[in-house]
């Protein structure tokens, strides 16, 4: 009786050695499980079997099976490895499918799963020897299973690492690319390609927001639909990625067009744009790591977009400045180049624009051998508009003074012309006069300009006679003129409010009082010296402060 037993034991042993060699030669989990079952089948003459392993949520999951249909396996109950023997569902399942024996697979550290076998061929029951053989198989298998599980885990960690490395690589590539691109459209394209290539998305849109208006850079959602959605959607409300329930609740419209993930693009925590993504084509949910990737790419892109926008703005500004520079040159040519000097009068003038194009104007025009016209004006506003109006005024003045009309009547005409040619709210303060070099007289009209100061014997006479500011309405009340006889030593200061309103660093105006004090004390100087010292005074007063208005002055000295 012992002899056949010995033989059986030897057969068992050789099968075990074979099995052990076999499964330890591979780290493939399926290979190991398959061979565990096959060895049981051949040695124990079983025809059905399955191996269920402990899954992450502590329930058994069938990993391999033979002799059962897929349908049956799909009915495998949800049981835990600790109490499956007592679970009624499992008992039913075992009963219905003729499962006769189950052996837990336990390694030194962990409960790994269970191996179950069905009926033996011929129907005989499993005896003690069979059970101990099965026990041995399972013990050897346990180590192999654990090893291959560790390898699988390592592989999946490796794959995740590879994916992360790839994402980092993409980020690195993009940061290089983005920094070199100065076209917004191009940035949008690269942003989209990188994201959808990395995450397998085919439905997407990228929008940016500037001055409260949206700009769609890229979209695979019909534009009309997208516009309808983002119109109602307050961009600043979205400061962090939104998906899932939150998207359903608060941004239902996004969901309706198939958007599953909304990621804001922010600069200094201000939302400047949105990346909208649909479902991933591989049906995998977005992971935290995916969202971080999209956010990072988005941040890179939005900075690049912002740079591109600033660059475009800078170009535009440069172009505008060039235009202004041209306008300024034209305007400079409108002012008199050389001031004629007379027998009994010295004339000097100064003009400095606050901007490239200013609104101040002065002129000195020789009318005939003894009469000279002087004029000063301040056009409302600044920049190109003021310069155009000033050019108009100059043209009117030049044509009118040739017609030899008395200056008060000429003023009526000039006001009518200016009124016709200005839009609402534009006007000109204007002072002009005719010097008679023979008679030593000045005949002037003041149309709302800061009254010129006539300094005579340490007293100031303000030249106020005239009428309304030019350009407010057509002439209803005619302008008046005044003729003054001038004496040797008289000084007349024509100026614009750029002088009296020149600001100091402490925000205080130069003021009429200061100007009057200053001119009273100017004595025994030539017209050039008078104007130079006045300008120096103003410059010292405003030292360091920005020149806020054009500064113009014209000084007449009687010899």
């Amino acid at each position, binding site marked *: 009786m012992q002899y056949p037993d010995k033989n059986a034991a030897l057969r068992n042993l050789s099968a075990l050695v074979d099995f052990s060699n076999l499964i330890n030669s591979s780290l493939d989990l399926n290979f190991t499980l398959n061979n565990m079952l096959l060895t049981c089948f051949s040695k124990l003459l079983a025809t059905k079997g399955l191996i269920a392993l402990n899954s992450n949520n502590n329930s058994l999951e069938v990993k391999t099976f033979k002799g059962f249909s897929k349908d049956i396996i799909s009915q495998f109950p949800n049981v835990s490895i600790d109490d499956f023997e007592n679970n009624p569902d499992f008992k039913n399942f075992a009963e219905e499918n003729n499962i006769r024996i189950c052996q837990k697979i336990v390694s030194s550290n962990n409960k790994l799963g269970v191996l179950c076998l069905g009926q033996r061929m011929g129907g005989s029951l499993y005896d003690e020897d069979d059970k101990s053989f099965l026990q041995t198989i399972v013990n050897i298998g346990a180590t192999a299973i654990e090893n291959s599980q560790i390898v699988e885990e390592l592989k999946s960690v490796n794959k995740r690492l590879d994916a992360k490395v790839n994402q980092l690589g993409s980020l690195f590539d993009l940061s290089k*690319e983005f920094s070199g691109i100065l076209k917004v459209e191009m940035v949008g394209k690269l942003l989209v390609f990188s994201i*959808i*290539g990395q995450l*397998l998305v085919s439905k997407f849109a990228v929008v940016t927001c500037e001055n409260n208006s949206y700009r769609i850079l890229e979209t695979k959602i019909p534009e009309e639909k997208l516009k309808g959605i983002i119109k109602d959607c307050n961009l600043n409300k979205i400061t962090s990625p939104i998906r899932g329930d939150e998207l359903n609740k608060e941004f239902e419209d996004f969901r309706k067009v198939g958007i599953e993930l909304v990621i804001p693009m922010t600069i200094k925590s201000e939302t400047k744009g949105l990346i909208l993504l649909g479902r991933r084509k591989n049906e995998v949910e977005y992971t935290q790591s995916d969202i971080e990737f999209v956010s990072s790419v988005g941040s890179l892109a939005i900075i690049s977009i912002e740079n591109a926008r600033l660059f475009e703005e800078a170009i535009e500004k440069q172009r505008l400045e060039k235009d202004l520079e041209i306008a300024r040159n034209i305007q400079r040519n409108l002012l008199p180049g050389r001031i004629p000097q007379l027998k009994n009068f010295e004339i000097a003038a100064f003009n400095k624009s606050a901007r490239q194009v200013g609104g101040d104007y002065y002129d000195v025009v020789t009318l005939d051998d003894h009469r000279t016209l002087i004029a000063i004006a301040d056009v409302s506003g600044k920049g190109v508009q003021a310069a155009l109006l000033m050019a108009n005024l100059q043209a009117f003045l030049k044509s009118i003074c040739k017609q030899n009309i008395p200056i008060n009547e000429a003023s009526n005409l000039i006001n009518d012309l200016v009124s016709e040619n200005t839009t609402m709210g534009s006007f000109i303060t204007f002072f002009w006069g005719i010097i008679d070099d023979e008679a030593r007289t000045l005949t002037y009209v003041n149309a709302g300009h800061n009254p010129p100061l006539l300094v005579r014997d340490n007293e100031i006479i303000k030249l106020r006679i005239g009428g309304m500011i030019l350009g407010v309405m057509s002439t209803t009340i005619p302008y008046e003129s005044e003729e003054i006889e001038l004496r040797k030593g008289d000084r007349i200061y024509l100026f614009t409010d750029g002088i009296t309103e020149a600001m100091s660093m402490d925000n205080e105006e130069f003021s009429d009082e200061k100007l009057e004090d200053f001119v009273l004390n100017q004595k025994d100087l030539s017209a050039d010296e008078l104007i130079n010292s006045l300008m120096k005074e103003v410059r010292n007063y405003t030292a360091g402060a920005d020149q806020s208005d054009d500064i113009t002055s014209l000084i007449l000295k009687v010899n």
Partner: protein
Amino acid sequence: MADFNVQVRGVGHVSIVDLKGYLDAHTAPELESTFNKLIEASNYKVVVNFDELAYISSAGLGVFMAYVETMRENNGDIKFANMKDNVYSIFDLLGFPMLYEFFKDEVEAIEKFNNQD
């Protein structure tokens, strides 16, 4: 700057797109305009031949994602052929084999299209 070149050949009803060099963020727009032209000409059956492609970045992969739906909606597809292992591994890593068909040789891909017709 890395070189990239894209050319299109027609084999029957199928368009073969030959890629050469480096397909990255910088060169992706070239491939994009190729796809736009194919769509304009109603050529929706596309085989991309990767034989001479040395490198692809995820921006390059994105171009395929951006156009595959249009092709499929029009009874066409984008199929990949003659891919080198290093290029394939990037497609594999990002899960493309689930969504696209890969062929060892473009002839097989063309045949697949022809058998559909």
